[in-house]
């Protein structure tokens, strides 16, 4: 009886995840001074804050995002960070940004003042391709040099290193869920790999998604049992279960509002809002997630 109940609940959960829909809330085109965004590649959000890596303009732009309404748009222009591509917010609202030119991760305070670089203590020659934070602000770096995921404590000390499969894969992003499971995204095989907290090696989670994704570039978890994959070249968002199962595909190519053109990063708020850094459209696309 218990087993049947569990199966019913699992099926209901799967249906709910597959029913995830995105309702367009319009785009963000400019900063507070009406300066247009140019090829933005990164976006991070928390309830109340929205930070965009406005890559083509070599700056960050910080907005307020309350009750689904975006306002403000203060420019953060730093001498140290000239080509920001990925951005995350920690639990205190501080900003972490990956600069592709510097090939380093910078720490900024919540107002955007430069606090310093993340220097990995215990590993040399690190070239970060991507990074993520966990709930305790532990930092996870996808390192191109060692082809591994490096887990750092908030002070930057290396606490764990998990190597990625060496051949036949091109890892471009990672995600960490509340249980501490690390997910790694292989753009070449269109696969997601995972390693449980304390695990020693990555194992394939999803398989055979080449027909569902063209060139996935970004991965995040919604904390509710769904992995969201940004399919950059396929111009869409692919939904996967945490077991790697394919749940569906959202958004499509286009230049009009609600469509995307070479999207690169997305972020989700606890309140069910979603923002997409829409590089090819020179804008940020906002959506409400409905289930």
């Amino acid at each position: 009886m218990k087993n049947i109940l569990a199966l019913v609940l699992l099926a209901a959960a799967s249906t709910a995840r597959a029913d995830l829909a995105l309702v367009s809330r319009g785009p963000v085109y400019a900063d507070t001074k009406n300066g247009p965004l140019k090829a933005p590649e990164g976006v991070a959000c928390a309830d109340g804050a929205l930070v965009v890596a406005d890559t083509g303009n070599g700056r960050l732009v910080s907005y307020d995002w309350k009750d689904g309404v975006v306002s403000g748009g203060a420019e953060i222009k730093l001498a140290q960070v000239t080509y920001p591509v990925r951005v995350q917010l920690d639990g205190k609202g501080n900003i972490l940004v990956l600069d592709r030119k510097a090939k380093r991760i910078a720490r900024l305070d919540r107002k955007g003042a430069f606090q310093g670089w993340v220097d990995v203590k215990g590993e040399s020659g690190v070239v970060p391709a991507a990074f993520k934070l966990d709930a305790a602000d532990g930092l996870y770096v996808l390192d191109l040099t060692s082809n591994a995921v490096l887990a750092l404590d908030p002070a930057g000390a290396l606490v764990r290193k998990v190597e990625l499969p060496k051949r036949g894969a091109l890892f471009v992003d990672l995600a960490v869920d509340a249980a501490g499971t690390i997910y790694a995204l292989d753009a070449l095989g269109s696969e997601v790999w995972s390693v449980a907290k304390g695990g020693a090696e990555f194992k394939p989670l999803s398989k055979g998604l080449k027909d569902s994704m063209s060139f996935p570039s970004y991965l995040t978890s919604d904390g509710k049992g769904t992995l969201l994959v940004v399919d950059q070249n396929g111009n869409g968002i692919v939904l996967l279960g945490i077991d790697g199962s394919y749940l569906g595909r959202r958004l499509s190519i286009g230049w009009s509002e609600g469509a995307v053109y070479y999207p690169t990063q997305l972020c989700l708020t606890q309140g069910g809002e979603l923002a997409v850094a829409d590089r090819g459209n020179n804008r940020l696309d906002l959506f409400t997630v409905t289930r």
Partner: protein
Amino acid sequence: MRSRTLLALLSALSLLAAGAAGAENKLKLQPGANGKVCLGCHTGDLEKALKKPFIHTPVKARDCTGCHSPHASNHGKLLSEEPSKTCAACHDVVPAKPKSAHKPVTDGGCLTCHDPHASGFKNNLVKAPRDLCAGCHKAVVQTATKAKFKHRPVEQDCATCHDPHGSAKGASLLKGGVPELCVGCHKMERPILVAKHMNYPVAGARCTSCHDPHGSNVRGMLYDNVHPPVAKGMCAQCHEPPGSPKRFQPRQAGMALCKGCHAQKVAGMLDRNRVHWAVVGGDACLSCHSPHAAKEKGLVKANMVTVCGACHADTVKRQALSETKHKPISEGQCTKCHDPHGSGAALLMAKADTVELCGTCHDWQKHSTHPLGAKHKDPRNQNLTLDCLSCHRAHGTEYKHMNPFPTTTELCTKCHEKFKR
């Protein structure tokens, strides 16, 4: 030994005769009905064929029913089975687990290469072996013919190194792996070869990483583009000395080694906003370049469609499926539009301005009157101006003219909404 072979041959022939006689008896056939009778009607070409030096065994034995059904069939030429199965009944030529197999064989096209009745060439080939291979592998054979330094087996018979059906041992139908296949003829312990390889123990190395097995214009049959230190025999410039316990290990790992000579180039690459991940990760320069010699210019490992497609398979696939082909991609010239080392623009475009980039090949003002350029806003998006990519996808789509939408009307009415029906 010879008498034993003769004995085996006679036994086989007597068994064949007995089998034929058995079938005739079982079906109460007229004498010769499984073959000789056929020749009463099938004269002409078949008669001529029977005069050729190489005759297929069942034909020679006048056993036409070995392959054909005399009354009716679901297959062409009254074959008892579809052609590949008919041949496979006697000829088990493809290994059970092949590492490579010849496409005509896997497609069941035995007759692409063989004449089922008779031929002037051994193994009933339809042409002389080299001419036959050249029918499909024209580029390889032509290049080999023109090569200044030729590989003798290529001049004689491709089948010296390749198994034309399939191979259990190597890729590209090779009869063995490399170097095993090569060292079968080239004894690496010979002093001249030891000296040519600067005393490095290359007997276990992959010969085809430097040598073109089909011939080349460079002495030693090195690929046409040789890395200068290799050409000058300065192996120790990059590798530990011969005899070192580290054997072939490079003196430095990754890009650091290349930087020794190419410092300016590397610095220029690393200074760009976006460095290609292949440059900084994995095998660094060796992700795309061969360190010794290569067929392609710039020591690129292979044709760019192959090299770039190793990671960007989705893009190559899109082009392959596209109704309209974009020439630089189909010709493997990815660098016409992209800078493979790094760029200031997204997607490693060689020029940030799309109109300018496309304009290097397409003189758009001559074939289009549609406004384009920085002065013309895209009506769909206030942050975009009109450029070539407003209407086309450079790597193609499933629709004509690299159009992202099924019809031209659908494309145009995205902006010109008043014409939408």
